């Protein structure tokens, strides 16, 4: 054993007995680093020895007990004991269990929301507020239950609702931020509009469902000019026909393309202008 190793051992023993001041006062930086690493190692080994002395099942059940106890404390708002835990792994476990428990309670409250939708709705939520306003103005226009995520509107009423949303001083949605489509299954497509009022600062989402066999929605391209390319792209990918659009051509794909690629039942074509589209058939991969 060299002198340095002896020195390290001495310092480690000092450090383990709680005298860290002498360890920190080592002037040689390399030596200090080595001593500290050795202390950490020794502590870890000691911890392992202790836990291995216990029987495995006992250890597990005792940690489980600790976790459930601490989670209960955490749910009541007392985080002090959790943060004071020395074992890093155990602390992380407790915290993750706490998050899980909190999520479950939130989910429960969500379910109660669904059972009685109109009681717990936040009236300040713009999606709720404007859905109610639209219902007053156009009694049959709302397609689904009023909720906080979106406003469902029937395609026949959409043009009038859109005009009202833009022109009414209380709404004044002057910016159409995005139009997208979705294939929501059960042979239905929907088109989603994100509207924003730069003047009043509120934001809503409109969803319009149409059957996949005859997907027709009135175009709002002349109300919000930004809708022009958005609607063309959605037409390109989903085949929703925006009636009244002045230039409804494909946006990204070539004009002679077959099918609408983002629909769930899309089959890619075998060849395009004599070029093989799919070089290897699926069976070869399997």
């Amino acid at each position, binding site marked *: 054993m060299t002198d340095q190793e002896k020195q390290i051992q001495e310092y480690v023993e000092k450090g383990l007995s709680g005298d860290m001041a002498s360890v920190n006062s080592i002037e040689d930086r390399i030596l200090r680093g080595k001593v500290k690493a050795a202390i950490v190692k020794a502590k870890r080994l000691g911890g392992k020895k202790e836990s291995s002395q216990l029987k495995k099942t006992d250890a597990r059940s005792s940690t489980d007990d600790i976790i459930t106890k601490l989670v209960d404390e955490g749910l009541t708002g007392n985080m002090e004991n959790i943060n004071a835990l020395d074992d890093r792994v155990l602390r992380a476990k407790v915290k993750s269990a706490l998050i899980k428990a909190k999520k479950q309670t939130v989910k429960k409250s969500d379910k109660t929301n669904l059972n009685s939708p109109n009681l717990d709705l936040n009236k300040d939520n713009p999606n709720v507020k404007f859905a109610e306003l639209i219902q007053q103005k156009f009694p049959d226009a709302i397609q689904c239950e009023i909720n906080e995520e979106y406003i469902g509107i029937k395609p026949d009423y959409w043009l009038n609702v859109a005009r009202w949303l833009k022109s009414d001083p209380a709404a004044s949605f002057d910016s159409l931020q995005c139009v997208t489509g979705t294939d929501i299954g059960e042979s239905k497509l929907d088109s989603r509009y994100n509207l924003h009022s730069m003047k009043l600062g509120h934001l809503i989402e409109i969803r319009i469902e149409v059957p996949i066999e005859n997907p027709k929605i009135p175009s709002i391209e002349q109300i919000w000019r930004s809708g022009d390319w958005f609607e063309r792209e959605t037409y390109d990918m989903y085949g929703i026909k925006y009636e009244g659009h002045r230039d409804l051509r494909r946006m990204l*794909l*070539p004009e002679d393309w077959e099918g609408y*690629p983002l629909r769930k039942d*899309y089959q*890619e074509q075998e060849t*395009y*202008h004599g*070029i*093989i*589209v*799919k*070089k*290897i058939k699926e069976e070869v*991969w399997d």
Partner: protein
Amino acid sequence: MGLLENKFKDNVLVAKLDQILSWSRATSPWMFQFGLACCAIEMIATGASRHDMGRLGMIPRASPRQADVMIVAGTVTLKMSLRVKRLYEQMADPKYVIAMGSCATSGGPYWQHGYHVLKGVDLVIPVDVYVPGCPPRPEALLEGILKLQEQILEERPLTRKMV
């Protein structure tokens, strides 16, 4: 003027016309810049001062009429493939193609599910050199250009058909 100033006396050099032709072709392969996707960034880096594609006699041209080599750098969509073919046909003979990156060689990440991507530019035009990588580093592209030059040097345009 240059490095060779006063190095040679008045002289006569003798060579085969064939070899001179292929040598002159190999040392000035003007390139048709065809940056389609992220590979274009590496192609630009190859042209910039650190790697300096110009020292191999390569000058970027914006027109197919003035170019000898087409470097297809990036994803070729099916919509673009028709244009690639047309531009290749507009180049004057002799013409060469370098497929740069995995998209241009095989479709790359769009191999299985890219409904809109051409699975390798060699389905549309003949390719001389494939440069693998996603995207290839400038060194890889330079290696590809050197390989192409080797290939051009082997050609004997007057006595043999092109290899």
